[in-house]
């Protein structure tokens, strides 16, 4: 743990899911397509010995602007929610450098676990209107979805694939210190 990490008080920090967002961004056709997961969990644990974060998102809660697309994303063609209902992330050693965060961790998608390098920013803890200590953590990671067996695609008239393989996973988390 670096010296700058001491600015975050030790203890357990729980996710405030209402004011957090976990989703993905992927190039599709002529732009970037985004989706979110409504049902997410995360916990940040900070102790003198180090910091740890783990989080999860339920595939069945994927939120896009079309229910048929949501159904397709949950199907075996994509995340296969029936067999692999939960996406997971865990990092046992969080490395802080000022406001920036580098988190080498492991991500599990469609039952496949791979190491991933997550980067982001950490806000200074504040005390909210209800007296809770609260901090913000923004994380992102880039993965190749085909490494996890999420292989769907369809060719454009040019023959090029419509959907990119590289996907950015974005988590904007607000965490509240447990009493």
């Amino acid at each position: 743990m670096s010296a700058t990490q001491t600015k975050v008080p030790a203890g357990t920090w729980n996710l405030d899911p209402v004011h957090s967002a976990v989703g993905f961004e992927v190039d599709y056709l002529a732009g970037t397509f985004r989706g979110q997961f409504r049902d997410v969990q995360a916990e940040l644990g900070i102790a003198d010995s180090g910091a740890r974060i783990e989080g999860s998102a339920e595939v069945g809660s994927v939120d896009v602007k079309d229910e048929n697309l949501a159904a397709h994303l949950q199907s075996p063609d994509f995340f296969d929610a029936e067999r692999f209902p939960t996406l997971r992330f865990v990092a046992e050693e969080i490395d802080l450098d000022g406001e920036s965060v580098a988190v080498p961790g492991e991500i599990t998608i469609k039952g496949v676990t791979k190491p991933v390098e997550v980067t982001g920013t950490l806000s200074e803890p504040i005390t909210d209107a209800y007296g809770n200590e609260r901090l913000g953590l923004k994380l992102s990671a880039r993965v190749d979805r085909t490494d996890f067996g999420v292989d769907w695609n369809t060719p454009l008239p040019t023959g090029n694939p419509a959907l990119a393989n590289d996907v950015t996973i974005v988590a904007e988390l607000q965490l509240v210190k447990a009493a």
Partner: protein
Amino acid sequence: MTKVLAISGSLRSDSFNSKLLRNAVEFFSDDVEIEILDGLKDIPPYDEDDDGDGAPEAVHALRAAFAGADAVFISTPEYNSSVPGQLKNALDWVSRPLATNPLRNKPAVVVGASTGAFGAVWAQAELRKVLAAIGARVVEAEVAVGHAPTRFDEDGTLVDEDLREQLGEVVEALVSAVAERQELARTAA
């Protein structure tokens, strides 16, 4: 008891794909109940105006057959490099509404026969794509019966040993997919 809905995509009475389907049925063990779908010819063209509670009786029966099955086994011919219209049309009815259709997560396997050399491989590929888009759990296995008139005897028995072995493997893969899903449901319960 596991129930498999078996579908021939051909309407012709002496269809090679119907023969292939009947051969496949024999590879299932006795504890698997097979329903061979008939009535494909009675399904009208998909029209959203006709869908819903007032959908045609043949469509209700079609949807009930899919809903009552644990898996789907389809043998398809190939028309102009693709899936026959009547088969695609039936799947279009079954797929609506997409988010709750009875094919979602259901194991499905595709085989095919054609009079040409390639055994309906393009139709099979397109059918797998269609099934996946509907949300089925498409089993990655293929049997392509090319030169179909030479592959069956007078009784309709598939006589090519390699193809028979492949057919047995496809049936086994489908049954395994069903068993895996049933185990998953037991674990979750």
